[in-house]
């Protein structure tokens, strides 16, 4: 059996305690180990993505117990693309954390960072709903530590809100899992898909409740309006590299929605018809609007970026809500774009903060290194708001193209285009106040010249922006690939066969037992 697929979970799990035990007092050794760990993750993730690119589904049975009794990890095109995306984002964010010195402002940043990666990777790879819950908790408990990294009263208060809200989300997740288990007697995703299809049409109350509860849990993670209110304050108060890494955490929610509602509750399933299909699209459109209004109304740069994340997640959820092959293609393209754009903007906001008295959108003397920072902000803002030529524009074009034939076409077009315009105005206002108007402000007499952000910080942010450019230039091959992912998602037979038919420990024995009796 191929053991490569468990490495994205095991590698960070081994490196993190090693960092704590062996290099607790040496920040430079911690940095080296952490970077090496993330580079190894990228290599493994790229290998797995290459392996599954031809449509192979890789299965890993923990302790060799066959599904549905044992826990399985499954690598198909979607999950390997997501782990590769996570690993690449993690590298640049880690470089920024090192370059800006954030990792030294509290203890155990690198260990928590590795645990966080372990949770995210596991959530993408697992083929079992309860195991998904466990990996959610792993990534959350690491994120609690990262969220309050380096302390401060505002950050701790935001941390309490964040932890409390996520604990409620976890409780809801357990309620959903309990009702699913009570209705079907299994929590393995492939097995669930089989059993849900067999449920009698007259006894659907329990499974419908469970499907909606599960959707609510994932919508909390994906920050879908009206379940978004934990996001602006947590993301704005979190340390910048942590907020940038959190850009992938909202995508975990989007990933879970795509996975569960194409595999277990597919759109043409009768017993759950009229549930997520009808409610997800309006909620996504409200998120898009809400994000744009928040961008225009924000009075601080970090809040502005947080609201743009909500709008961006709304744009991801609009095509997901349609659950067609073309729309999932567009959604996956937009997920990659939105992750990099949000990550870059959080880091740029931190570059501005490091040389400035607060992030309020008011004219202040120019920040150190303003020219380069402004250029990066300009590029990332173009990407985030969806102006040509960057990938935000292509992504929105794909989304609009996917909704063209649907009944909600008029509403979607109106809301997406109007909110993009509002977003452009909001970002333009913020950029001009922070970077242009600054030149008309006199420097205080006693102001000491601030050091510009370090070269490594610029390399990290530049790297993410470069990823956005690559995502634009290679939009053709990437959309062909996301379209192949969508094709695999809507033909789950190979996935289910791989998970359920592969024999494990004692499978052969029980068969020969039966034959012997």
């Amino acid at each position, binding site marked *: 059996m191929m053991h490569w697929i468990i490495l994205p979970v095991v590698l960070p799990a081994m490196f993190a305690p090693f960092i704590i035990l062996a290099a607790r007092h040496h920040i430079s050794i911690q940095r080296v180990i952490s970077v090496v760990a993330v580079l190894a993750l990228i290599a493994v993730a790229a290998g797995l993505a290459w392996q599954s690119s031809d449509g192979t589904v890789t299965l890993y049975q923990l302790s060799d117990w066959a599904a549905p009794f044992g826990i399985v990890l499954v690598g198909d095109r979607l999950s390997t693309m997501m782990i590769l995306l996570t690993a690449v984002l993690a590298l640049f964010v880690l470089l920024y954390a090192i370059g800006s010195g954030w990792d030294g402002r509290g203890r155990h940043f690198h260990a928590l960072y590795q645990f966080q990666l372990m949770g995210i990777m596991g959530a993408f790879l697992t083929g079992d709903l309860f195991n998904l819950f466990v990996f959610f908790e792993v990534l959350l408990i690491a994120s609690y530590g990262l969220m309050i990294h380096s302390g401060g009263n505002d950050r701790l208060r935001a941390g309490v809100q964040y932890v409390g809200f996520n604990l409620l989300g976890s*409780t809801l997740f357990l309620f959903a899992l309990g009702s699913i288990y009570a209705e079907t007697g299994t929590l393995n995703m492939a097995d669930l898909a089989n059993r849900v299809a067999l449920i009698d049409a007259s006894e659907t109350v329990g499974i419908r409740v469970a499907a909606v509860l599960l959707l609510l849990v994932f919508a909390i993670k994906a920050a879908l309006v009206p379940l978004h209110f934990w996001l602006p304050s947590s993301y704005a108060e979190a340390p910048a590299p942590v907020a940038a890494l959190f850009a992938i955490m909202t995508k975990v929610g989007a990933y879970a929605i795509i996975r569960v509602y194409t595999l277990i509750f597919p759109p043409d399933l009768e017993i759950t018809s009229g549930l997520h299909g009808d409610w997800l699209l309006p909620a996504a459109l409200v998120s898009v609007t809400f994000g744009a209004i928040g961008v225009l109304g924000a009075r601080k740069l970090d809040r502005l970026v947080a609201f743009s994340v909500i709008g961006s997640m709304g744009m991801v959820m609009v095509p997901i809500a349609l659950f067609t092959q073309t729309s999932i293609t567009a959604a996956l393209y937009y997920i990659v774009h939105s992750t990099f754009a949000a990550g870059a903007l959080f880091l740029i906001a931190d570059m501005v903060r490091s040389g400035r008295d607060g992030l309020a959108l008011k004219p202040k003397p120019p920040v150190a290194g303003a020219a380069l920072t402004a250029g990066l902000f300009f590029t990332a803002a173009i990407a985030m708001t969806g102006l040509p030529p960057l990938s935000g524009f292509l992504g929105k074009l794909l989304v609009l193209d996917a909704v063209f034939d649907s009944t909600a076409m008029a509403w979607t077009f109106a809301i997406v285009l109007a909110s993009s315009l509002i977003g452009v105005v909001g970002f333009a206002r913020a950029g001009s106040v922070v970077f242009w108007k600054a030149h008309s402000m006199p420097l205080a007499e006693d102001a000491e010249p601030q050091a510009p952000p370090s070269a490594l910080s610029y390399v990290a942010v530049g790297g993410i922006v470069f990823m956005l450019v690559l995502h634009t230039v290679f939009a053709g091959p990437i959309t062909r690939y996301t379209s192949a992912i969508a094709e695999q998602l809507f033909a789950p037979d190979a996935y289910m066969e791989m998970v359920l038919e592969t024999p494990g420990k004692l499978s052969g024995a029980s068969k020969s037992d039966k034959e012997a009796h």
Partner: protein
Amino acid sequence: MELLVASAIGILTAGGIYLTLRLRTFPVILGISLLTYAVNVFLFASGRLTVGAPPILTDATTYTDPLPQALVLTAIVISFGMTAVVLMIALGSFLGSNDDSVNDPIPLGDDSEEDAT
């Protein structure tokens, strides 16, 4: 039996939701604990309620479903640890700012730097 367990889950959940809607951290944490108790009993009951039967396959004809017991153990450990974490963060926040309200402070006006928009 069913009535007893169902009403226990219901009352715990109702109390938990009421407490989490308060604006101070201590009631919120108590409410979250009540909710996790409720969900633990709920998970336990999701394998159907069977009295006095072993949770493994034996020669006996009745047995209780072992999986929810394993699930609920995991859930108990996780919720216990998480409650400890949130308690420590809340305590740190309270001791640091001498204020235990959950909401962001209300901005003083347009001129304040630390407004919460």
